[in-house]
């Protein structure tokens, strides 16, 4: 039934996004890229998909400018899609940007806390998280003003309200603020895709639930792993776990009690996927080694937990395209593109630093 009227409003968007998906780099493209000797070669390889955006770069550009240009492409395409979206899809895409908005607001809060000129920060903000009233936040000079303007001017108000006060912005670590916001955002997004009349019971709700549940679990696991050895107490940590996902509630409860890597492993044992990740990471990381050993020393073999999560995310995103009449492909496309940008940056870094042995650490699903 849901497919009957989908194309009336969203058919064009779906077509465009599927077209974008087809222009994503494939495994063969990546293999070609890893053979490059210089950034210029890489630029040439990227020509077919990124030509317009890379054209203005000087010869042998820095990896950061390369990343910036590739992001520009994503942003411009996203804006095009957003401009053409209507109704629930428009709202859905707004939800997509909230995640970036949280990062931007956190950045502005940090700047205000340290009494920096927040106008400089606008350049550093992620363009996807840009909202019209963002420059207004720069007027705020103290944290209370900022808090009030965030409440009034941004769509993030519901995430602040009820869980954070303006004193919290001052006292809590910005990372806790950010993760609290993100938790609220994920819960709200989950609620949105499952409760919105245009989405309940459609493939959108189904696929997005899977993606968001995975995202929630990943955040919970990462927060737990990263909080070992910091002053973040277990009670505070528990507050940062989103209240849904495959791990919720037993898994998150156990996560909140975990003291070390093995504790986390026990907590996620109930979910087969995560169990395999942890087993592999545990083997790769060696005894006692924490999960995300990507091998900064160059010694660790195999994939880190983080890599495996990314891999999993990409697979879920890829599978989203097997469904029709769903908004989830927009989300999946954005995620795939982000991963692509990360891959390009990584390969470019490896080429620039002449560290070819780990160049194949990228994640490609096509």
């Amino acid at each position, binding site marked *: 039934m849901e497919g009957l009227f989908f194309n009336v409003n969203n058919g064009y968007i779906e077509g465009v996004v599927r077209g974008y998906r087809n222009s994503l780099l494939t495994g063969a493209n990546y293999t070609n890229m890893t053979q490059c000797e210089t950034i210029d070669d890489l630029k040439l390889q990227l020509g077919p998909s990124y030509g317009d955006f890379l054209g203005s770069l000087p010869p042998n550009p820095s990896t950061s400018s390369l990343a910036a240009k590739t992001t520009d492409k994503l942003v411009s395409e996203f804006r095009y899609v957003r401009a053409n979206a209507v109704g629930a899809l428009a709202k859905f895409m707004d939800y997509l940007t909230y995640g970036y908005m949280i990062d931007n607001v956190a950045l502005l809060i940090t700047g205000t806390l340290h009494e920096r000129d927040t106008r400089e920060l606008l350049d550093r903000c992620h363009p996807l998280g840009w909202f019209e009233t963002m420059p207004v936040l720069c007027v705020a000079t103290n944290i209370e003003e900022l808090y009030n303007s965030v409440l009034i001017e941004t769509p993030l108000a519901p995430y602040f309200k009820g869980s954070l006060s303006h004193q919290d912005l001052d006292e809590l670590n910005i990372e806790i603020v950010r993760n609290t916001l993100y938790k609220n955002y994920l819960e709200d997004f989950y609620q949105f895709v499952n409760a919105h009349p245009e989405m309940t019971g459609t493939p959108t709700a189904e696929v997005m639930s899977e993606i968001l549940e995975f995202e929630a679990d990943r955040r919970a696991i*990462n927060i737990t792993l990263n909080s070992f050895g*910091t002053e973040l107490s277990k009670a505070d940590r528990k507050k940062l776990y989103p209240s849904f996902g495959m791990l919720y509630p037993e898994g998150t409860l156990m996560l909140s009690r975990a003291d070390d890597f093995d504790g986390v492993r026990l907590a996620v044992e109930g979910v087969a996927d995560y169990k395999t990740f942890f087993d592999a990471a545990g083997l790769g990381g060696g005894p006692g080694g924490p999960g995300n050993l990507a091998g900064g020393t160059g010694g660790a073999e195999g994939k880190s937990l983080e890599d495996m999560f990314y891999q999993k995310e990409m697979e879920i995103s890829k599978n989203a395209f097997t469904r029709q009449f769903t908004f989830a492909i927009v989300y999946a496309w954005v995620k795939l593109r982000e991963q692509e940008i990360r891959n390009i940056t990584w390969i470019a870094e490896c080429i620039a630093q002449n560290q070819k042995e780990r160049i194949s650490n990228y994640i490609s699903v096509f």
Partner: protein
Amino acid sequence: MSGASDREAVFPTRQSLGLMKAKLKGAETGHSLLKRKSEALTKRFREITRRIDEAKRKMGRVMQIASLSLAEVTYAVGGNIGYQIQESAKAARFRVRTKQENVSGVLLPAFEAYQTEGNNDFAMTGLGKGGQQVQRCRETYARAVEALVELASLQTAFVILDEVIKVVNRRVNAIEHVIIPRTENTIKYINSELDELDREEFYRLKKVANKKLRDTAAADKEMKEKREARMAELAARGQENVEPEEYAEPRNILDAEVDEDVIF
């Protein structure tokens, strides 16, 4: 440099000869000491050069790993976290202490790096994702900075030692080629002057002796003539007075004349 001109302006006296001899001895001791110091410093210098070479190579490796780990952070976090890191860092965790090392009287500053415990300002950066990479990146960079500090202290030592070795070598050469020859020249000069003086003195003494001899001879002659004149006068006047005999010559009462026997 002719021997005559290259000497110190001293009066050629025995005292200054003594002084010069003491000076020469001092210069020789100083020369050997300085030579040894210069050798010790050069040895150290070579060692430092070797260590700088090692440290630079290590630096290259460590920096490479470090920048790769930064790339890893960018990959994991999926964005630039530089600003957050800058803002959340409050107190220095990695500090440098300086102490001094004494190498043959040269004070070389040595930097020692240490990390303050429990000072982890951005422990929570990347809490959501990439936190582990951030921490690892920090550790790698801490190692890189450590290598940098080591290199810095070696480089400082290198520069200072270079300077000091130059100064010491200059001193050694100055002593060897200027001060010692000049002192030796001075001693030679004083010696020759003293010999000259000796000869002059000897000659003078001889002259004086001659003169004295001549004077005595003259005086003797004069006295003899006087006496003869007197004798002649006395003889002319006749034996009217016996006393003048006594003037002439003291009588030897023992063997002058045989006394007439006294007969009672």
